[in-house]
């Protein structure tokens, strides 16, 4: 081991990192093969495979280490740089005295502590969305669909379901929309039809008379109620301050009032949400419409400009040569070339 590190330290300083890695790997294999100290189970015939097993084990453990670059080692097995780095700790001379067994053990423990990731890994099926797979499935769909001429519009209809798909294409099939209205997202179950619980259900006094139906009636009275609640909030706060200055023990009742007011306010706003969503949709559509129209206008203007230029060109061509439309310019050019040739011959 000491010899090995010594070799590593003897490297010329100009070599690149990958060269160092290759070099050190080769040295490592050489050292591992020549020394009998790999472990109790190592037989002289298969030290290499045994070591590879150990290394692979540590690589899989250190999957989430920062370094993700692969290198191909001489035995055609992929080993990640991170594992190499964990083989070569920062202070090599000390490790030279430790036995290989404890060193490997150390390597196994090391990644454990750093496994905590800020974000969960993406679901595994993102890897199925390769270029080949997408073209393959679109061709399959084209052959399956009843009307091959009709273009498939992903925004309105689901693609036809193909039942016997090869395994690697299975994830490219969009799942059925939730039939029951329940779907899972980030491990939690959600219900599409989850109604907003009313205030009575939550044992909170309702301070306003609900507009006949939350979505049908006019909403301006809603704004009025909101304004009233906002004003009551302020008034109740002043009362609370007054109570606190005279008899602080009696705060509870007023705090309760304030709480009820706040909850009512929020509840009213939450009831308003579907309306707001529709309203936002309308705004977005108006926006889109404007954009589309502006684009069309721009294209038309440019077209007219180009047409004007073309017109101009044709006219000058006509004026200069006095020949028919379209052909004028070509022939004019040919004439010029002939003229030039005559001059130089």
């Amino acid at each position, binding site marked *: 081991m000491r010899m090995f590190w010594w070799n590593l330290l003897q490297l010329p300083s100009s070599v690149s990192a990958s060269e160092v890695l290759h070099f050190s790997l080769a040295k490592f294999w050489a050292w591992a093969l020549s020394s009998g100290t790999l472990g109790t189970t190592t037989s002289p015939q298969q030290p290499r495979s045994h070591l590879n097993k150990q290394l692979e084990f540590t690589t899989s453990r250190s999957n989430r280490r920062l370094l993700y670059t692969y290198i191909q080692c001489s035995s055609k097995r992929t080993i990640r740089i991170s594992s190499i780095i964990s083989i070569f700790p920062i202070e090599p001379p000390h490790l030279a005295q430790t036995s290989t067994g404890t060193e490997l053990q150390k390597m196994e423990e090391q990644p454990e502590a750093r496994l905590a990731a800020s974000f969960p890994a993406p679901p595994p099926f993102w890897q199925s969305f390769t270029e080949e797979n997408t073209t393959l499935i679109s061709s399959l769909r084209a052959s399956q669909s009843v009307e091959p001429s009709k273009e498939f519009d992903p925004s309105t209809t689901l693609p036809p379901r193909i039942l016997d798909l090869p395994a690697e294409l299975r994830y490219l099939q969009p799942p059925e929309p939730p039939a029951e209205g329940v779907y899972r997202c980030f491990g939690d179950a959600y219900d599409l039809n989850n109604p907003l619980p009313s205030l009575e259900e939550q044992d909170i006094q309702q301070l306003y008379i609900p507009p006949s139906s939350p979505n049908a009636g006019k*909403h301006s009275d809603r704004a009025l109620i909101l304004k009233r609640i906002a004003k009551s909030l302020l008034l109740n706060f002043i009362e609370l301050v007054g109570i606190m200055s005279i008899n602080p023990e009696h705060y509870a009742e007023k705090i309760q009032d304030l709480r009820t007011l706040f909850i009512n306010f929020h509840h009213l706003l939450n009831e308003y949400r579907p309306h707001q969503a529709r309203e936002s949709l309308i705004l977005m559509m108006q926006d889109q419409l404007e954009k589309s129209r502006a684009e069309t206008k721009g294209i038309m203007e440019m077209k007219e400009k180009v047409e004007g230029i073309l017109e101009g060109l044709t006219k000058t061509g006509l004026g200069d040569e006095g020949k028919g439309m379209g052909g004028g310019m070509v022939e004019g050019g040919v004439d010029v070339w002939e003229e030039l040739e005559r001059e130089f011959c």
Partner: protein
Amino acid sequence: MADRLTQLQDAVDQLANQFVASIYYVNKHHDLQTLSATDSVRDTKKENEGAQRDPQDVEPLPAQQFKDGQRELAQDLITKEQQIEFLISVLPGLENSEKDQERMIKQLEEDLKVAEEQRKQALKEKEAVLARLEGVLRNVKRP
């Protein structure tokens, strides 16, 4: 930026926070009073020097500073209230009912389809004109 409903809810939450902050300020920094003429305010600060201070302890501020603080907090409360009222008055589509909205959405959808068709048509024409221009440019030979 969040939609107006969220803004409004945030504003109301901020108002609640300001309530708490105001009460806390008054509770923490009010001046100490004597109950009778013979009492005197104990100077706890000097007695407790070095020892752990109780967070419940009152730290009286100078009268003018305390008044200014109160005034500022009150002004903030009023400003927030006004913000809330403004946000309420600009809530989107107060005058529209659900049916109106649905009608508008359908109308807009139709309009969008027409506009999209027009755009596609214009694109085609543009391509045609471009092709013509290209043809002309290619035929022009440099003398």
